[in-house]
């Protein structure tokens, strides 16, 4: 990597403006009805359409395909601000932007990009990513879904599980075995549409958190996919999946940072108001020190995430840094929500307080798009290489 012009920790004026705009939008449009949507498992589709109009659902896609052509750091800032208010909306946004549109733009043919990306980038349709199966989570290479060639088409059979946007998505990047004898090198990536014959989406799962996001299974029953919907070449599927995850982990790290930020705000506000032993509990040293730790870990998580995003696609270290950011930010956000709930005492256990929902929402950040354990393996592989 060529030397830079020195360190600059500041955001650009455009980035600051966008961040402020997204924060205002999230407060005005996503804050109202948050608790109700969590209870009723309702995705705020109308607000997502508005986000599409703002360019927030096709941030990483080039303008010629209808996207906003933003850099990964700017994308992370937007995810962080959305997650600070509604983590469910943030993951919906992250999935369509990052694990769906990014690999299509990166590995799809020009024709495929023109067919699929404009409606996704505009937010008129949502995208998803089908890698995980009931029997293969961290061990993605053990997937069972198969695709066999039939003339100009591929025929897919199998099932995917835990797919964000399953029942609302129109386009999915789906991984399947095209050469069962070739093991991990026999996996290919396809763009599958919900209107293709043999495709079905399952009902939304009941989840502990992120209840206002949609998660479900995808079923392929002799699902016919045109050969032009293959990404890159046959056998490149896992490489595409891992490159995609290297990138998308930035969005999950940013989501965790947004949740962490909110947990700190809630804890600070509660500690200032709540009086025990004749003083606001923020006057008690144990509470102050907990707040100081939350703020310090937030600074670390945010800086790791932004640094990884700024170097994304530009440095051989980018993959390791994205894993470091995702690992640290998700674990720190979990600690922050735990501590923020503890500061709330019994009230924190009540769903009347926002921290209870955040505590449920944050839990998945150390699991999806690569568990903490998988991040550690990825990081260790980089550290021990060469």
């Amino acid at each position, binding site marked *: *990597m060529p*030397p*830079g*012009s*020195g*360190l*600059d*920790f*500041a*955001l*650009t004026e455009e*980035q600051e403006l966008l961040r402020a705009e997204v924060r205002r939008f999230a407060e005005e449009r996503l804050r109202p009805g948050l608790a109700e949507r969590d209870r009723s498992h309702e995705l705020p589709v109308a607000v997502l359409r508005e986000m599409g109009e703002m360019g927030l659902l096709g941030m990483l896609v080039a303008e010629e395909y209808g996207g906003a052509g933003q850099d990964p*750091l700017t994308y992370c800032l937007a995810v962080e601000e959305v997650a600070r208010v509604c983590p469910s909306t943030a993951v919906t946004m992250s999935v369509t932007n990052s694990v769906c549109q990014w690999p299509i733009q990166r590995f799809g043919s020009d024709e495929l990009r023109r067919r699929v990306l404009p409606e996704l980038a505009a937010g008129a349709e949502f995208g998803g990513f089908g890698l995980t199966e009931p029997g293969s989570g961290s061990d993605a290479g053990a997937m069972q879904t198969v695709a066999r060639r039939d003339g100009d088409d591929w025929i897919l059979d199998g099932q995917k599980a835990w797919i964000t946007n399953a029942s609302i998505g129109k386009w999915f990047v789906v991984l399947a075995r095209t050469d069962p004898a070739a093991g991990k090198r026999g996996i290919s990536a396809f763009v599958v549409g919900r209107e293709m014959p043999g495709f079905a989406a399952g009902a939304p799962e009941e989840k502990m958190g992120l209840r206002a996001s949609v998660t479900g299974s995808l079923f392929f029953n002799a699902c016919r996919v045109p050969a032009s919907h293959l990404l890159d070449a046959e056998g490149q599927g896992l490489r595409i999946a891992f490159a995609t995850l290297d990138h998308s982990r930035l969005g999950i790290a940013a989501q965790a940072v947004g949740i962490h930020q909110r947990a*700190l705000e809630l804890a*600070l506000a509660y500690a*200032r108001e709540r009086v025990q032993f004749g003083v606001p509990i*923020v006057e008690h040293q144990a509470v*102050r*020190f907990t*707040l*100081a*730790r939350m*703020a*310090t*870990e937030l*600074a*670390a*998580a945010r*800086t*790791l995430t*932004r*640094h990884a995003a*700024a*170097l994304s696609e530009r440095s051989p270290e980018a993959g390791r*840094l994205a894993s*470091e950011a995702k*690992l*640290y930010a998700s674990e720190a956000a979990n600690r922050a929500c735990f501590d923020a709930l503890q500061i709330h005492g019994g009230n924190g256990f009540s769903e009347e307080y926002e921290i209870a929902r955040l505590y449920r929402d944050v839990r998945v950040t150390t699991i999806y798009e690569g568990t903490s*354990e998988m*991040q*550690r*393996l990825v*990081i*260790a592989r980089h*550290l*021990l290489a060469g």
Partner: protein
Amino acid sequence: MRIELSEEQLLLQDTVRRFAAEVVAPRAKEIDESGVFPREFFARAAELGLTGVAVPEQYGGAGMDVVSYCLVIEEISRACASSGVILSVNNSLVCDPILAFGTEEQKREFLTPLAAGEKIGCFALTEPEAGSDAAALRTTARRDGDDYLLDGSKVFITNGLAADVAIVFASVDLSRGHKGITAFLVPMDTPGLTRGGHQYKLGVQASGTTELFFENLRVPARYRLGDEGQGFRIAMATLDGGRIGIAAQAVGIARGAFEEARRYARERQQFGRAIAEFQTIQFYLADMAVEIDAARLLTWKAAWKKQQGGRYSLEAAQAKLFASEAAQRVTNKALQIHGGYGYTREYNVERYFRDARITEIYEGTSEIQKLVIAEQILRA
């Protein structure tokens, strides 16, 4: 936002890394055991401009930026934490306040030889009964014509055994609390000043830490740094900067321990294979690397903020708290990876483990950092 070192910074990092490998590392074990202050190291560091990294050239410094200073302290501490803190004190706690608060005459007389490394400085704030509660210090300064007469004592003074100049904090009026505290530039050969002996410690053995005693110590008024009563503010502002140096030191110690552990894990065979192939060891290494990277970024961020001007107390306290705690965990895991060998003096890792401990204590304990951080976030 872009965190990439400039060409000059990369060059400096490379130069200091080589200097550390050739000059500092070979003597690290020896001075840890003897506790002898490494004067020769200080002199050679001076030749490279490392004794006054961020001091302008007109005052004998290298005229570089605060991030460059962090690079220097990290590289030196990676080889030898004693050497790291010796430089950190001279740069941050001695040169910095003279540059910020000194008169032109004081800069010429004191700063120039200190930054050039012709003289060694120390910072005398802590007393037996005034550690975290620095405002409770009991050393007094009594005006006597054109001079002040200082009486009292200081403890835990890094570089104290070797220093030529001390910045001494004393009260001109104990009844005024922290508003009576005043800073003085004191040549160490002034009659009435005596040093204690070598203080045996858990780690950073060669940092020349000792006590200082003042008895009717006569200091001319022109050596007063800042105004009467300004001393506490000078001390706190100075420690903000010092914390960046200690954070960089902690990063260096942690990195040294991590690199040794990674090498050992690749070589050490158990159960028929290198222990680096066991998942637990891999996970230890991954967690260590994440903490080191995060600590370094926070340290650089504080340094960048300081360079920009304006307040950076929050960033410096966060960097120091995070980096010092990370250094405890990283050196502990590094020792664990080494097993029984790690507990012996044959390997460097036990030294890193001992040296890391002080970073959570000096220049403000972790508890003081948390107080500072809480105050800052509650103000917002």
